């Protein structure tokens, strides 16, 4: 991990140049609203509702993962589902999804601020699971 010192306008800022922070959200998409559940942000809801049939998106959990350069962080999102996020050297992020200890897939892409990587699938009844990843500013 490298440290860079920026000076400008009389102020100094200390930035960890090669680490990133990724937000991983576990979301449940349903046709009906669930009372008492936390809703996802409007930004995510609008984007998902534009593509999928479900109109209500409930955020079950949200985890902030700080990952150093070329390092991997594992996060358990539910009892059976977990993700491994790697901060690659080329500025890309690699996300592996595991279910019951078995890897289902690995997705690698450049993840810029304000952009989302979504892994999704069907859940019980008329609902769907979503793992929404985004890069913090």
């Amino acid at each position, binding site marked *: 991990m490298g440290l860079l010192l920026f000076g400008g306008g009389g102020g100094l800022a200390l930035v960890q140049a090669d680490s990133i922070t990724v937000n991983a959200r*576990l979301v*449940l998409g349903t046709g009906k609203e669930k009372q008492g559940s936390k809703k996802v942000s409007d930004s995510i809801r609008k*984007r998902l509702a*534009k*593509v999928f049939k479900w109109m209500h998106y409930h955020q*079950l*959990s949200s985890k902030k993962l700080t990952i150093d350069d070329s390092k991997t962080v594992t996060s*358990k*999102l*539910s*009892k*059976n*589902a977990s993700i491994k996020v790697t901060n690659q050297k080329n500025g890309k992020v690699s996300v592996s*999804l595991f*279910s019951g200890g*078995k*890897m*289902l*897939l*690995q*997705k*690698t*892409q*450049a993840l810029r601020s*304000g*952009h*989302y*990587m*979504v*892994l*999704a*699938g*069907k*859940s*019980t009844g008329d*609902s769907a*699971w979503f793992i929404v990843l985004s890069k913090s500013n």
Partner: protein
Amino acid sequence: MNENEIQLKVQALVDGELTGREAEELQQRINNDATLQQLHERLTQMRGLIANSELPRPLPESGDFYWNKIAESIEREERAGERIAKPTPANRWLLRWLAPLAGVSTVVLLLTLQQPTAPDLGITLSSDHELELSSDEIDVMTYNSDDDSMSIVWLDYSMDIQKDYMELWLD
């Protein structure tokens, strides 16, 4: 024989349609009946008037020649009709090859038009993403939004995420 039938018989006699014994018997009856005599005379006079006033209509040619001309005309028209209906070898070739080709082309066009197209979700596939699957049994669909601000991987993999999430906290 009633009166009407007798009058018709008299008419037939005048027209020369009765012959032999039947004509003789009717003639005797007419001779003995004044009313029938009057009817016979009147019909005979009327027939004479009609016969005299009818204009002769001679055929331009002799009868046989006239009907021969009609028969030849009919045969000529039939031959002309056959000439039009029979396709030439070139036409036959065109019909043999173009008709099936036109049929196949129509079927291909219909199938092309009916090809299931991906739903217009306002998102496009991007090549700037790498995806590795650990199992061939899981079907996936990958989409990117138009502005590339959201990439989605939809897995044909069901998870009871809500129950799993609750159990995570109960453990």
